[in-house]
């Protein structure tokens, strides 16, 4: 499979102190790592694409490590995660699906074998297209306080022959979470769900 050609890399860190309510003792932080790569399958239908997932593994690990570093370096601080991809218009949605395995496993590995499935989304779009990356708790998908999302996008990407890859990590619940449901303190941590 072809080598990964990187054009751009972006790190975004967001700190939320409040949203009209009491100021949080420690602000919620969300971080996104974005990478813009060449889509080796753009412009034609290629039946066999799955091998490219393995080529993306090192990039996934690098992005996951960069996120932890952007949040201060301690993986234990990370409580939520998500991933996504925007495929440029000469590519297929299926090319975005190549990111599920390398993106997801990279974060789970860096976060000490996190148990929950990594929430994800993907779409085809042009430069400037925005993506709402869904976020859930890293060990139990049903933790309601950690259902969140982070909007990402890059003014000049993805070009037609590119894919924009995204990983997102957060350090806690929504800043004024108060709609009940399973709490992080109640996680059993066996099945990745509760």
């Amino acid at each position, binding site marked *: 499979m072809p080598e990964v*050609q*990187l*054009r*751009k*890399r*972006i*790190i*975004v*860190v*967001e*700190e*939320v*102190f*409040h*949203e009209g309510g009491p100021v949080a003792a420690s602000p919620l932080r969300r971080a996104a790592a974005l990478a813009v790569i*060449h889509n080796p399958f753009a412009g034609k239908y290629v039946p066999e694409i799955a091998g490219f997932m393995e080529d993306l593994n090192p990039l996934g690990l690098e992005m996951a490590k960069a996120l932890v570093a*952007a949040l201060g370096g301690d993986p234990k601080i990370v409580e939520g995660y998500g991933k996504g991809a925007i495929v440029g218009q000469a590519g297929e949605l299926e090319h975005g699906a190549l990111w599920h395995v390398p993106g997801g496993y990279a974060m789970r590995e860096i976060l000490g074998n996190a148990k929950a499935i990594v929430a994800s989304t993907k779409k085809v779009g042009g430069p400037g297209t*925005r993506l709402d990356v869904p976020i859930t708790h890293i060990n139990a998908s049903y933790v309601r306080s950690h259902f969140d999302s982070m*909007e990402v*996008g890059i*003014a000049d990407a993805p070009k037609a022959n590119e894919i924009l890859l995204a990983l997102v990590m957060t350090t806690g619940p929504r800043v004024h979470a108060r709609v009940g449901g399973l709490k992080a303190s109640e996680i059993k941590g066996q099945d990745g769900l509760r």
Partner: protein
Amino acid sequence: MKTKIRKILIFVEETHSEMGKHVNPPTRRAAAAAVIENPFAGNYVEDLTELMEIGEELGQLLTERAVAALGIPGASAESYGKAAAVGENGELEHAAAILHPKLGTPVRKTLGKGAALIPSSKKRGGPGVALDIPLGHKDAAFVRSHFDGMEIRVNDAPRANEILVAIAVTDSGRPLPRVGGLTKAQIKGEDGLR
């Protein structure tokens, strides 16, 4: 601190290639942005001193955060810019009060020098509005390789009574500059222009 901050965002962008040609070392730029309460939203206030003082606080905070995100000493920064977006209940003049009278001094203190005008832009808008922060060389405004801009946006800001304030700092110019003009090697650095 006088400034009431709801959120802080940090963006770091690296360009590794353009048109398949490697950019070595990658060009890097960072923007730090704060979402703050607009103390004058909703009515006409003649004396904008409070916003000028807020500008002074943000000049220091955001420049320090942007430089830290690049991991460089302030003196190694090459170009800079500033911008603000005022929520719908505020005036364009509120952005001017933050950006122009007092914000520049702490920016220059953090970056060591900064003989050149800090290029700026401002607008009024709603949540998610794109802010294009103009960039110019910090010691000589005519350095053509460093004429640039950086787009940022925050999906939930500015709300009606808020202002989004951003400062961008780079350690480089455009990725593959080749349109001539004054080069950074030719800077005299006396008048802020050449």
